[in-house]
Each structure stands twice: as structure tokens, then as C-alpha cells.
């Protein structure tokens, strides 16, 4: 019975993480793109005059989409039309099953591995499942019976067959290095050091494979520079065109859920997963008290700095709007002062005298935090690249996929195999 509860708890962790990150990513996308383009971004939606730097907007967006009329084309293929939005979301949610987000955690004396399903063929599972997302796109393009949607579906298909092979070849190199298809083995193997100082991360041992994989993941998530199925400047909105209200919201959320998956895959395969470089788990457990103390001090310092930024705004923006929004700096400063006080109170509990059980817990939580931090960084990379690069042309992606990435992936595989045979 316990294994059922463990699994449910881990699934819940991933579900909350994805859904929370989707909201945060939509905010990061809108606010980040605004700052990159010298705009201020969304800053109007507010709850009681508190705008949270635009974080209320995703909530407002979802509420709006929930209450909108669901307009559907008359000649749609009913079954496929209704099924398509769910496929992307389901696929994004399923890929997480095999991604380890920590080593293990000790709950009530039991060691629980921090992965939902530790499949021995985890990598094949990911390659098999993640490609299914294209079906959602193609179905949406076909079922809407609109020529622009249809063109989007065609683009999705041709895009998929162009990047899938190089993606698989890039991962084969990784499999040769870590000699396992199990994702927990790959993540654990990246905790080692090469020559005693270089972390054995995938990006260090497989730099070419990393570039191939990250480009393929960009193509798989249908994000710029490879967002051809959407291509709003060429085919209106491609496959999204005939979808409205909550069905459109599902596509929208699936895109961000895919970004989180992509970021988690890049993290797990090439950036050490939950591993902290030069700080393996035994070391964390041995010095857990010191690490926890330093973390609390750091948290307190950061909170004080942010609170000071808010205090600066308190005097500068007094009566700027003349309504409830003027309370914002005071509330922000108060919140961060509370965080700082909590950190100091945590120091009062003498964290440096933590016992071995607590030390294990600290190590597990630190690993989970590291994983989430890396995932957030790579998800930000998706947004960052989107607002930097123009879209590739449809034929350019196929040219790259077949004539550049495929030979490069094969060469990488051969070189890796030879090196592995010699070493």
C-alpha cells in the first residue's frame, strides 16, 4: 500500500510543479519579452490593488478563457477536434514519469527513490512518448478543416521527421558514455568528477550531442526558432486557428508544459539532473548543519536586499496612482521583511546542531531544489531564445535536420564509440 501512496505523492509533486511552472512561465514570457523589447509588460490586473509585477495576469487569462464562448468550425471532424487539445497535455504529463528529481528521501524510516517510475528503458520511453505530441498537432490541423490549420499540421509532421533522428542519435552518444538507458543511472553517473575536478556532466562529455539535443528539443516543443506549426506571420496561427476558449487554453498550457519537460530533459541528460557540482550527497550529509546555516543567512540577506528595493519605492512612489496600487511597495517590503525575520528565527533554532535524520532530509530537499532551479533556468532559456531569434524557414529546418544534424549526430556517435573503446 505504501508504494501506492509514495507514487501518488510523487505524481502530485510533478503535477504541482508543472502547473505552477506553467503559470510562472507565462508570466516570465510576457514580462521577460517586454523587458527585452524595452516595454513594461502586463501590469494592470490586480487583486485588491496588488499587482505582483503582473503575476495576476495568468490567473485573469485563465478566468477569461474559461468563460469565453467555445466557437467551433462547422465542418470539423468532431472526435479528432475534441481529442487533439488533450493529447499535447497528456504527453507532456506522461514524460515526467521517468525523470528523477532527487536521489532518495527518507520518510518514516523508508528510503523512497525520487522518481515516479524507474524504468530500465526510461530513455526509450521518453523518445517514444514525446513524439506522440505531434499527433495532437497534426490532428488539430486536420480536424479543424481550415487550410491554414492544415498547413500547420503538415509543417508539424515534416518538422518531426527532421529532428527526431538527430535527437535519438544525440542521446545514443550519452547512452554510450553512461552505459545505461535508465535515467536514474544517467543522473547518478553525472555526480562523478573527471580527472578529479571536472563534473562529469553530459555537456562536458558530449558537447556536440548537447547542442544537437537542445536544438531538437526546441523543435519538439514547437518554440521559436522552430515554431513552424504555429507560424503566426505566415499561416495565421496554424493549428491553433480554429480553437477558442478552454480548448485553446489547453494548447497554450501544453506548450508551456512541454517547455518544462524539455527543460527537465536537458537538465537530466546534460546538466547533472539533481546533482550539485563538487558537492556529492555524502558531503552534503556530513556538513548539513553548516550548509543549512549558510542557506538561512543567504536567504535572510537576499530578503533584506529585496525589502530595501521596496522601501526605496515607498518614499519615491508615494501617491503615484492615487488608488489601492499605492499600497504595493509597503506590502512588498513587509512581506520580504517577514521572510528575513523567518530566516533569522530559523537561525535561532540552531540549525548547525542538526542530527543525521535531518541531514538526510536537508540533502534530499537541496537536491530537489537544485533540480527545480536548473529546470527553471532552461525554461527561461526557451523564452530568452524565442525573443532573440527570428523563425527559421520551413525548408531551412528540413535542410538542417537532414543535411547538418543527421551527419553531425552520426559523427558524434562514431567518435564517442571509438573514444569509449579506447578509454
Amino acid at each position: 500500500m505504501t508504494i501506492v501512496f509514495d507514487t501518488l505523492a510523487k505524481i502530485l509533486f510533478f503535477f504541482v510543479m508543472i502547473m505552477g511552472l506553467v503559470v510562472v512561465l507565462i508570466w516570465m514570457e510576457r514580462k521577460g519579452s517586454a523587458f527585452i523589447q524595452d516595454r513594461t509588460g502586463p501590469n494592470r490586473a490586480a487583486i485588491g490593488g496588488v499587482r505582483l509585477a503582473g503575476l495576476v495576469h495568468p490567473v485573469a487569462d485563465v478566468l477569461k478563457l474559461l468563460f469565453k464562448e467555445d466557437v467551433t468550425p462547422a465542418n470539423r471532424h468532431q472526435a479528432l477536434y475534441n481529442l487533439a487539445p488533450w493529447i499535447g497535455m497528456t504527453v507532456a504529463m506522461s514524460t515526467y514519469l521517468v525523470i528523477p528529481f532527487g536521489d532518495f528521501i527518507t520518510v518514516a524510516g523508508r528510503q523512497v527513490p525520487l522518481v515516479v517510475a524507474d524504468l530500465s528503458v526510461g530513455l526509450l520511453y521518453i523518445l517514444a512518448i514525446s513524439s506522440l505530441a505531434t499527433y495532437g498537432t497534426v490532428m488539430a490541423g486536420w480536424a479543424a478543416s481550415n487550410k491554414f490549420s492544415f498547413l500547420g499540421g503538415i509543417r508539424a509532421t515534416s518538422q518531426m521527421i527532421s529532428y527526431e533522428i538527430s535527437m535519438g542519435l544525440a542521446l545514443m552518444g550519452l547512452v554510450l558514455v553512461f552505459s545505461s538507458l535508465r535515467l536514474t543511472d544517467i543522473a547518478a553517473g553525472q555526480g562523478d568528477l573527471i580527472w578529479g575536478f571536472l563534473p562529469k556532466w553530459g555537456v562536458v562529455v558530449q558537447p556536440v550531442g548537447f547542442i544537437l539535443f537542445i536544438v531538437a528539443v526546441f523543435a519538439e516543443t514547437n518554440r521559436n526558432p522552430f515554431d513552424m506549426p504555429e507560424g503566426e506571420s505566415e499561416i495565421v496561427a496554424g493549428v491553433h486557428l480554429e480553437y477558442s476558449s478552454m480548448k485553446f487554453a489547453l494548447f497554450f498550457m501544453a506548450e508551456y508544459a512541454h517547455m518544462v519537460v524539455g527543460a527537465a530533459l536537458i537538465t537530466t541528460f546534460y546538466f547533472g539532473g539533481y546533482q550539485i557540482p563538487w558537492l556529492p550527497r555524502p558531503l552534503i550529509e556530513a556538513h548539513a548543519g553548516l550548509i543549512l546555516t549558510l542557506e538561512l543567512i543567504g536567504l535572510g540577506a537576499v530578503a533584506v536586499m529585496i525589502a530595501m528595493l521596496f522601501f526605496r519605492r515607498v518614499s519615491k512612489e508615494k501617491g503615484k496612482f492615487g488608488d489601492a496600487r499605492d499600497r504595493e511597495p509597503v506590502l512588498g517590503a513587509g512581506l520580504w521583511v517577514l521572510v528575513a525575520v523567518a530566516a533569522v528565527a530559523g537561525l535561532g533554532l540552531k540549525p548547525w546542531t542538526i542530527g543525521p535524520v535531518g541531514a538526510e532530509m536537508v540533502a534530499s530537499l537541496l537536491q530537489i531544489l537544485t533540480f527545480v532551479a536548473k529546470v527553471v533556468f532552461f525554461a527561461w532559456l526557451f523564452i530568452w531564445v524565442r525573443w532573440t531569434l527570428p523563425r527559421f524557414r520551413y525548408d531551412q529546418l528540413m535542410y538542417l535536420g537532414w543535411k547538418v544534424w543527421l551527419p553531425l549526430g552520426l559523427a558524434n556517435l562514431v567518435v564517442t564509440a571509438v573514444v569509449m573503446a579506447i578509454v
Partner: protein
Amino acid sequence: MSFEGLPKGSGDKKKSFRESIYLWEIVRGLGVTARHLVRNILHTDDMPTMQYPEQKRVYGDRFRGRHRLMKREDGSPRCVACQMCSTYCPADCIEIIGAEHPDPKIEKYPLTFDIDLLRCVYCGLCEEACPCDAIRLDTGIYEIAADHRDKFVVDKDFLLNNDTDGTL
């Protein structure tokens, strides 16, 4: 890639090796966007965006906004219904019906003076054509909004007391 048959300049430019592998140029591009991002996060106040309904752009004195009709000292319109402005108006948006004035020193006065604000191009030629400085575009009002087309045709009384906000 071959671009034969396409007009010159459609992507045929010879790329250097560094440009042809894209990666270095992508990293440079990411650097540019990152600079903008960091600068704008650290100096939010310096951003050129105006928070429009709260902050409004200040225009110069010569800005041509919504029209107004000037009054004499006794409060009657200065306009003598000479039709100069409506004749000169390139958008043909002024319609005046003149009438005889009871005061023999003044020849005519406008019975009606309607301006269609949707047709007006705010060129200011009516101002220049007017012989007695009766019409001016110096109110500085540029937010002109109404919920019906008919409301954009404003009459003499409105133009004589035209110092409110943009709502019609």
C-alpha cells in the same frame, strides 16, 4: 543551399564560417537581449513607456486639438458666418447656416455651426482662413471618443463651451 532563379539578394550572400554555424551569432544575439533585460530590470523608471490613463503626454502649444469657437465680450459667438472656413476646409467637415444679426453693426451670425469630428483632419486651415479669429484648434484635447457616430457631429453650443475632457 542553391537560390538559382531567384532575384539577386534573396539569401545568396556568402556567409563566413562563423556565421554559417549559427551558434556564435546566436550567443551574441542572446547577449544583446540579455543586456536589454538586465538594464530594464535595474532601471524600470527609465523605460520609455507611459502609463497612459494616469500619465499623459504633454504636447506643445501649437498642437492642434479639438476645435472651439471664440466669444465676444458679451458672450455671443465671434463668427460672422462668412463661410470662409467651410469653403477652405479640405475635409468638408464644417457646415454653417448664417442668419441676419439684430445688431446692424454686425452683418450675420451663425444660426448653426456643425463640425463633423470624424471627417476633420485637424489641418488647421479653418483657423488660418477665419478673418475674425472665431475658430481655434488650441484646446489641446486629443482624446475624442463617443459611443455613436452621430455624437461626433458637434454643434455651436458645444463648440462655444469646449473646455471639457474628451468625452462627447
